[in-house]
């Protein structure tokens, strides 16, 4: 089992695919759940504490907008944990979206900076592309399992 970083980082479809192949998806939902169920925090929409953008300084400098650093305080640790990654380009909003494209740019860059296997593919626009899309992801995940077995 490998820890797979997914982009969009809140895509339920990607998380589900990763899980079906026996890997652990590194999705932002778990991070947010942990935050909002923490007794020291109010209920949503308070997703992070006022201190979190400071934690985000580890990934983005102080001149980067606070919203980017706040999001990176959730996503940055996932990237550090990642053993592999799947990046889907130009997905529609309902496939998954972090909301801030500056954060998206930064997280993709940080993932690519790591020495890990990465699958990058375009979001399918037609039925036949969708099959190929799932096939490529499946092949990538199976190959990771194969690597582990060796």
């Amino acid at each position, binding site marked *: 089992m490998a820890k797979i970083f997914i982009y969009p980082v809140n895509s339920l479809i990607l998380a589900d695919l990763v899980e079906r192949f026996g890997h652990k998806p590194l999705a932002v939902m778990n991070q947010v759940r942990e935050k909002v169920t923490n007794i020291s925090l*109010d209920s*949503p*929409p*308070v*997703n*992070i*504490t*006022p*201190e*979190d*953008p*400071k934690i985000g300084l580890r990934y983005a400098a102080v*001149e*980067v*907008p*606070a*919203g*980017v*650093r*706040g*999001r990176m305080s*959730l996503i940055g640790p996932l990237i550090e944990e990642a053993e592999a990654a799947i990046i889907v380009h130009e997905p*529609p*909003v*309902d496939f998954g*979206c*972090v*909301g*801030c*494209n*500056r954060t*998206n740019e930064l997280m993709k860059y940080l993932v690519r900076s790591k020495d890990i296997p990465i699958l990058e593919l375009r979001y399918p626009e037609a039925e036949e592309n969708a099959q190929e899309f799932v096939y490529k992801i499946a092949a990538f995940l199976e190959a990771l399992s194969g690597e582990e077995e060796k």
Partner: protein
Amino acid sequence: MSEELETVKIALVSCGSEYSGVQPEFEAAAAEVNAKFVYPEIDVAGLDSIGKEFGLEVASGDLLLMMARAKAVVEGTTHVDGVFITTCFRCAEGAIVRNEVRRYIHKHSDIPVISYSFTERTTAGTLLTRLEALTTVARRRHLLAREVQTGLTAGIDSGSTTTKAVVMRDNEVIGSGWVPTTKVLESADEAYSLALEEAGVSRDEIQALGTTGYGRFLIGKHFNAQLIQEEITVNSKGAVYLADCQKGPATVIDIGGMDNKAISVDDGIPGMFTMGGICAGASGRFFEMISKRLGVDITELGSLAVKGMQENVTMNSYCIVFGIQSLVNSLAKGAVPEDVAAAACYSVVEQIFEQQLQEVDVKEPLILVGGSSLIEGVPKALGDLLKIDVLVPKSSHLIGAVGAALLASGYVEE
């Protein structure tokens, strides 16, 4: 008053303030003015096309969400009394959307809107005046529509640098007081006493009192004021009253001791406004420092400035710290005080242009108020920069006190 208890519904149109650590501050500021944030409902499927529909195609999903929420507000899908548009400070994409969404709502509805760019340092205190103004416009349109002062009323404006007071009777200012703010209560007491003395009336005779400015809550409680109101709405009203422009559009620029405000006014009611955002920078206090450095009284700075040429002095910044540094360097290189004074006025005006007017559509007449408007070089520099005539009404420094006395007279009739 029962109207004070009504909760005002404010649509929060943001790029994701809940990820910036500032949400508890937003909520605290809203609670302080008995307002509640709501998140206009939208159809997720519509997000894919909203950029094209809006004409502004951006990459960030949350900015598309802002456009969709603005549309929901304008179309009445979600009923709200006001809109608070906010995006991250330092984000260009956010700033573009923030401005265009603000313009869109303003153009298609008469719902009051404020916009703000937040950092993780944004506090409830910073937002309080803005949200207070927003809720006032939503709750008290009838009071703000007041055009004539009646009875015998007074207004006190407890500013960060100076405290002003006026006494008005039958639509005329009959007494005024203007003192530096040292201790808030004592300064207010002194200014009020001066105004009463000039008017020849006693405190017991005053039928209603209004307070505004930074110290409004403290002095309002102390003097048992009928009206305690932030300076955005009060100064808008005072400005159009003194400039005799109560009907139609106007732009009010208030250069205060601590911050600057630009307010777009329609029939005396503020629509869009901005006030000194991240840094108060150059304003009244900057002029005080310049006067001190030039060895002239602040009242002489203006006449000195109109004789000078700002182009002769290199100003690298309109920031109070770096600006002073530039001026000191210029003086050391032999610049004449007239040019330095002119450059100081220009730098303040430049800051207003860059930080406030970018978010407010300038509609004539442009009314300049606040203590700094008395410095002749300031209206001149502003007129030069914007290429329009700048109107400085009589008693422009008393604007807040006059506005408070005028609005307080609404309570005389009640």
